[in-house]
């Protein structure tokens, strides 16, 4: 796995990434905590865009956007601005939970479909000949 610039990231035996500084709040957060920019280390568009989408679905979020500040830095910046009904940190938390929940739901749905066996099982030679 890619090394963090501060060297604080490692991989545990079960493949979990552990870091003391996975997420930091960049300077310039508003005092009422409704606007913040987060730096998430060792992440890219994979998580960035999906997370941005989830956070934007929150009705209390006014703005959410992400960027990869530089292609050779292994991090993303995530900007969240919310209404006064919530805080940027809570919105990020909710976004993460929602994304996790969506994955979980996709997983159970997919496993259900596979269990029902309502699909065609084909030979590989046939499969390459008849792709839709």
């Amino acid at each position, binding site marked *: 796995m890619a090394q963090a610039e501060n060297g604080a990231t490692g991989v545990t035996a079960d493949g979990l990434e552990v870091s003391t500084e*996975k997420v930091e709040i960049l300077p310039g957060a508003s005092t009422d905590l409704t606007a913040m920019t987060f730096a998430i280390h060792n992440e890219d568009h994979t998580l960035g865009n999906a997370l941005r989408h989830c956070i934007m679905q929150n009705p209390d979020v006014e703005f959410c956007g992400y960027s990869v500040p530089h292609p050779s830095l292994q991090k993303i910046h995530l900007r969240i601005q919310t209404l006064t009904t919530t805080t940027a940190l809570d919105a990020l938390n909710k976004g993460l939970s929602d994304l996790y929940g969506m994955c979980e739901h996709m997983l159970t749905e997919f496993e259900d479909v596979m269990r029902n066996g309502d699909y065609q099982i084909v030979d590989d030679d046939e499969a390459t000949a008849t792709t839709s």
Partner: protein
Amino acid sequence: MPYDRDHVVLEPEQVTNVSSHEYPHHFPNEDPSGFGLEGFKKKLNIKVWRVSRDTMEFDLVGVDASLANAVRRILIAEVPTMAIRYVYVLNNTGIIQDEVLAHRLGLIPILAEPEMFNFKTADESPTDLNTIVFQMQVKCTRRPNDTVAADETDPDKLYVNSSVYSNALTWDPKGDQATRFADNPIRPVIDDILIAKLRPGQEINCELHCEKGIGADHAKWSPVATASYRLLPHIDIKQEITGDLADKFQKCFPPGVVEVVTEHGVKKAKVANHRKDTVSREVLRHKEFEGMVELKRVRDHFLFNIESTGIIPPPTLFVRAIRVLMNKCAVVKQAVEAIAPKDEDMQE
């Protein structure tokens, strides 16, 4: 043209209506609670079409492009596999240079369950829990003169081991690997991958160490040949297309997309199967169909195609990719919760 919320529209020279606007406050008088996780659960639909040993085709319906793309990206770059990391060349007198040979060996898919192994960090030494060892010892020799015709030119017939294939790799079990993998001995997925060519007197002797890794580090760890998706095409016939025009219309699409039916003695073009369309936009080149047809794609209907290298079956790959994404969320969430107290200090 009124705003079409569900489709991307393909015009002759441009694609319009590209971005999704499925967010709260985008449309008047819409219930904002219909978004997020609950909305997702209502909309999601998965349909698996076909599964083979190496491929899988399925529809992922009701998801945003960002999520479908995250899954695709993870399939390519972040689902771990085992691959040859180090090649210790003891002897190589063939014409394939050591470094080229090592690169070729690295790309061979190794049939080993990655979940049975740990990632090996730089400061760790190899153990039976993080490394698989293969030996490769091949020597090319001449076949005895009396077994080949005098005018034979085919190297396969003249020499033994003139071509070195992936089946030359012999697994060298370490620790309790022999018992742990007794049911499914570790081997290359495919036996006849050409690695090198030799001529009599040349030989290759090396020890290969496999480690667990991810495609983001090097493509040899990618568990897929490809993982891709496209949006479901949708052909909207705005106005009846009849007579000879119907035949011409049919010819603008790949076979099976449009059918010509006869209703009350009149030939009429009908869409038979949207998904077979390649969206070549041929139909938009013909003036006679102007205004009669609109080519679209359904924005949240992804036709997914996973092609495995053969190490992990495609349905398992999809499951693992989602687990990787869930793991990412969990790790970031943990980190966010860790910085939350600091945040309360700010509030005081």
